[in-house]
């Protein structure tokens, strides 16, 4: 017990050993710094070096076990107003070392405290880089974290028993919305946006509202009729978790509203727009999760450093006629943006609202709000 007072690694009171086992049997061991018990989910890594608070509260991570490649997490605590949704979306958090002594004037509690409040497990002390390389080489996998069971075999079975991401509808259940809610513009209103919430990040609404758009937030399941009944100037399709292909009814809805109202989508919203326009989506090996991916805007030629978080993507091969690819990821060439002139609909796969990440892409909100404000003034 010699190190108890000294080292924050697991041996301290209240900390329990935790086992992390992937569906392929790969096993890692650490200690909890928050929560206890057992949880399963797809394990994904994010390379973003700051923004753990925004990330764990981002609904797109719903049900996923979140691995931070940056090794020190918790440094600046939890800052009121920096969350992306109520509560914690990630199923669990894996870090190399948790910082119990956060330091930032704006912080009001520690990361561990927040996780504890929501009963989310946080584990530290494992070789997170080894796990990252494992996922990079073999692809994203389901895994189980447990403080109750340390037996690799049984945990491996639990991991495989967990539903795979492919075909999984997480979006319908992630909207924290039951009926439409109006969020007024900050300052003078220049246009009205109907937003379909599949698990939206609150910073997206902030971006729209700060540009004079009032936002009518609607559940992702809202019907075409109900959307059009509101006669919005523009329609926004939010980000969200899970496999877009599993959301047939949402795609159906879009098919019938597209063309009626200018539409802009982000992340899952982009994938759904793609499906509605007749594109295909597919599951990527380990997805894009980070804040440093270069994306070229094919229209302007400019490069943006983008915030990314998605495990599925729109297939570039045989895009339907009239559908233009507007942005390309310079790491792996994947589709980052789509545009349909005919339907006056466009979208990006990445996150122009950043949070976390560079703010190179705010112009997309300007363009959207401008486009629909013009219409509004007609």
């Amino acid at each position: 017990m010699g190190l108890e007072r000294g080292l924050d690694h697991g041996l301290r009171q209240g900390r329990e050993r935790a086992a992390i086992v992937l569906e392929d049997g790969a096993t890692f061991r650490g200690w909890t710094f928050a929560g206890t018990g057992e949880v399963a989910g797809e394990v994904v890594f994010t390379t973003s070096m700051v923004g753990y608070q925004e990330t764990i509260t981002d609904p797109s991570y719903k049900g996923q076990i979140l691995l931070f490649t940056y090794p020190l997490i918790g440094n600046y605590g939890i800052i009121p107003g920096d969350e992306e949704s109520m509560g914690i979306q990630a199923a669990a958090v894996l870090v190399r070392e948790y910082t119990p002594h956060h330091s930032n004037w704006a912080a009001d509690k520690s990361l561990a405290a927040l996780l504890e409040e929501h009963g989310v497990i946080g584990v530290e002390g494992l070789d997170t880089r080894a796990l990252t390389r494992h996922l990079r080489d073999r692809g994203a996998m389901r895994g189980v974290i447990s403080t109750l069971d340390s037996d690799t075999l049984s945990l491996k079975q639990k991991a495989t028993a967990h539903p795979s991401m492919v075909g999984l509808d997480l979006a319908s259940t992630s909207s924290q919305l039951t009926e439409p809610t109006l969020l007024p513009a900050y300052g003078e209103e220049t246009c009205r946006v109907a937003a379909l919430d599949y698990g939206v990040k609150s910073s997206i609404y902030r971006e729209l509202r700060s540009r004079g758009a009032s936002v009518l937030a609607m559940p992702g399941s809202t019907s075409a009729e109900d959307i059009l009944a509101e006669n919005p100037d523009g329609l926004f399709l939010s980000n969200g978790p899970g496999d877009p292909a599993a959301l047939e009814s949402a795609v159906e809805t879009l098919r019938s509203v597209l063309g009626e109202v200018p539409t802009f989508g982000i992340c899952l919203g982009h994938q759904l727009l793609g499906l509605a326009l007749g594109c295909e989506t597919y599951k990527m090996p380990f997805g894009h999760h980070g804040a440093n991916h270069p994306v070229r805007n094919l229209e302007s030629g400019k490069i943006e450093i983008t915030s990314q978080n998605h495990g599925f993507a729109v297939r570039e091969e045989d895009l339907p006629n009239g559908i233009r690819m507007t942005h390309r990821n310079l790491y792996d060439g994947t589709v980052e943006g789509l545009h349909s002139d005919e339907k006056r609909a466009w979208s990006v796969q990445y996150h122009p609202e950043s949070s976390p990440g560079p703010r190179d892409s705010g112009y997309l909100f300007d363009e959207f709000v401008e486009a629909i404000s013009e219409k509004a003034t007609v």
Partner: protein
Amino acid sequence: MPRRNDISTILIIGSGPIVIGQAAEFDYSGTQACRALREEGYRVVLVNSNPATIMTDPEVADATYIEPLTVETVTEIIRRERPEAVLPTLGGQTALNLAIELHESGTLDEYDVELLGASVESINKAEDRQLFSDAMNRIGMKTPESRTVKHPDEAEELADRIGFPLIIRPSFTLGGKGGAVADDHAGLRTSVIEGLDASPVGSVLVEKSVAGWKEFELEVMRDLDDNVVVICSIENIDPMGVHTGDSITVAPAQTLSDRQYQTLRSASLRIIREIGVQTGGSNIQFAVDPGSDDFYVIEMNPRVSRSSALASKATGFPIAKIAAKLAIGYALDEISNDITQATPASFEPALDYIVTKIPRFAFEKFPAATPRLTTRMHSVGEVMAIGRTFTESLLKALSSLELDMADVLPILDEPNPYRIFAVFDALRAGMDIPEIHDRTKIDPFFLASMARIVAAEDSLSADFDHEELNEAKKMGLSDEAIGQATGRSTEVIRGVRQALGIRPTFKSVDTCAGEFPAQTPYYYSTYETEDEVERGDNRSVVVLGSGPNRIGQGIEFDYACVHASYALTESGYDAVMVNSNPETVSTDYDTSTRLYFEPLSAEHVLEVLHREKAEGVILQFGGQSPLKLASELQASGVNILGTSPDAIDLAEDRSRFGRLLTELGIPHPSFGTAINPEEARETARSLGFPVVVRPSYVLGGRRMEIVYNESDLDLYLRSNADTSPSHPTLIDKFMEDYIEIDVDAVCDGQDVYIGGIMEHVEEAGVHSGDSSCVLPPITIHRALLERIEEYTRRLAIGVGVRGLMNVQFVVRGDTVMVIECNPRASRTVPFVSKATGVPLAKLATRVLMGEKLRDIRPGRAPSGHFSVKAPVFPFDRFADVDPLLGPEMRSTGEAMGVDRSFGGAFARALTAAGQTLPDAGRVYISVSNREKRAVVLIARAFADLGFELAASEGTAEVLKNNGLAVAVVPKIGELDEDVLSLIEEGGVDLILNTPWGRGARTDGYLIRRKALLHGVPCITTLAAAAAAVQGIESRIRGNTGGVNALQSLYASSP
């Protein structure tokens, strides 16, 4: 945009001699730039006066000019080489300022040479503090309230308005040169005057102090398509008020939330666009309020910097190389990321480790200066360490420092070189974090992390188990620290640890936190489960670098290590580099087959050797640091290539060495050792004064003095009281008025190759590192030279040298004596290699790997020209220090001058070292009585050259009696027209002042300080004065060749 084809020849300007604030990092960036541009097929012309650099190796550029960095010479080079463009953003402030001068002198227009990287406008906008803060305010960025002043009175007005303390920041300077903090009106005046002198444009910014705020730096890159990326963020542990170069810094930023960080990032993008740096890297500094989201922009450096070198090593993103490619038209996305090879350079590196940089200081060499850290940079080098946690990276960095704890005196309350140790002490003493934060303003995040280290140490039980030990290693505690904490020896801990199979894993630096496979073998150690080293089955040899630059062990040794590495790969081995210095070429990931960025401690070196299963290790190129490890490594069964530890000891142990010399029949100054003051007096008496005294086993002439009589000896003994049986004092007969000679040689066990014989300009008594020297010798006749070579051979064989050795002789009449022998690469290896065209370190490496000199047959040196090495000193940065030469080394770097006459070469070298000799004007002479006779000849020579003579009373009298016209200048304080005011008014163009009398604040001291302050060349030995005469003469009589490219010098050799 693709590569530009309208350009074929590009001139790159280097940064000149190593000075505080501008060091090896510019060799690293310059070398990368040269390589990158040649890869692209351009013809590269390089000018840099610093011979101790890889960039000035003849292979690195197409035409290499080791010439002074002045408008005059560079114009001459441009006239001859006709480059279409010049790249000034990789040679530090020196190159940037020279580019501006070349523009203002009209040279650039005349030969229509284009400035690449940064336009004159943007350089001015960034470097002129006023233009900069105007620009910032234009884009709505805050800078501290300030005012640009060209006269002290203007500063007073600001002081009256906003009060003290105030920060003084000269324009167009770096390393905080001429910068200061003023706490009252008196301080303000002097500081502003100093600042105005320091600024090449005579303008300083006086500014409200935000000392204590958090300081951050961002490294930004921009291409011609206006794409901008941030390569790295750096957080200073020492807050505002301590120069970033003197601060302990961490990458990436640790205590900013995403919102706070992105605010700085977005600001950086707007700043680089507003300033208009077209392409390349820039460094932007911010001050951030610890209690709110307020922040100020402090400055932007529109060029690669010390910090960008650090950022490159910290991230694996080669900023200088990319900057060079951007400068010739490529866009970021058109350049591939070497490390992944799959992805473009248009991205922002993601780290999955923490990097800590700690500066290395040299205050112990300047006892007169107070070791206090301010806005003016004082550090002479730095170490960097990589760890997976902050504690691990901090502790590794501390081990890398190689500090002699005897020099360490920690103070908590004011910023000083050893405050970090004071913080540890305070924590051990139980002081709480809020109080320490109060007194240091260091962010609690760092303090609390340090508290965990302290807690870990004292909670380690003597009967620790496997898991505790593993956790302790994970935290970063060294075997030594664990030993101290548990009352065991380091060896025992290491034994137990290895027996328990607790060994480090090596992880790679890959720019992308593991998202893509890394192709580049750049590793660091940590205690985790997965090891990533991809070691083929080729035989590997480990080269130990020289650690942090320090006075006495600088870039010269890195140069030798890099050559060793090149030679190894050329002979088909895997070259493995271990070093902890982020400034250097040796820690560039493409210098060696594999790079381990690790402390040069036995523990870390042994683990690398273990992981590498290396054939052996090479110690002799990294200076004293690796040599210190020799016996410990051998004891652990490591195969040491080259001179054996016992042979090393034979050369370093005075009494063993003395006996050897007698056996070999080689004369040496008589000497003795004393274990107490009484014995010391005895020995001195029997040797006869003057004598040289020093503690045993010292380096760089540490605490070495020449004493002329018994009272001085007592004084010395009292100030160095630790004389004892374990620390004997060495006493040598001081060989007065002897010429000193340096020899570098290579020995393979049978044959000895004499690399070069250097004759010092200053007489023995001035440390070899601090005296100018010339190759070949100019006053030693053939017979003596042959004897010197013969002694060198005998010594090499006698000591048992394998590889490089350096011998120092003193010579007078026809006596030749040996004063010391260093069985390793010396400071002069690069100088000799450049002067002769024979790469000594490569030669030595091949010998170490078993080749024979007689098979290699190194070429012969070209004749027909003289090469002079001149040192540069950091005196201007250390207030109150007397700029005098002595047996203790204090220079930070050197410049080289080459010409067909000694005088010409000496003049060039001095110019390059910033001591430009005047062609006409007034010489002020004031020498000690011992030298009054000898000075007559010199004075006459100056008169013959048309100089006006002025002198102090005594000296003037002697000169008059010898029929020389000389003006008498009143003693200091006598009249208001004294010599000091004369210097101030610029009434003196050259000063010859040799020291007399002891103690501080003599007139001589005041004169030398004043000269230093006003940049008047000041010569302090007659020998150097005589050489200066030759220098001026050869210039006036035009007895000098033009500029010379090394390549043509070597070609012209027989």
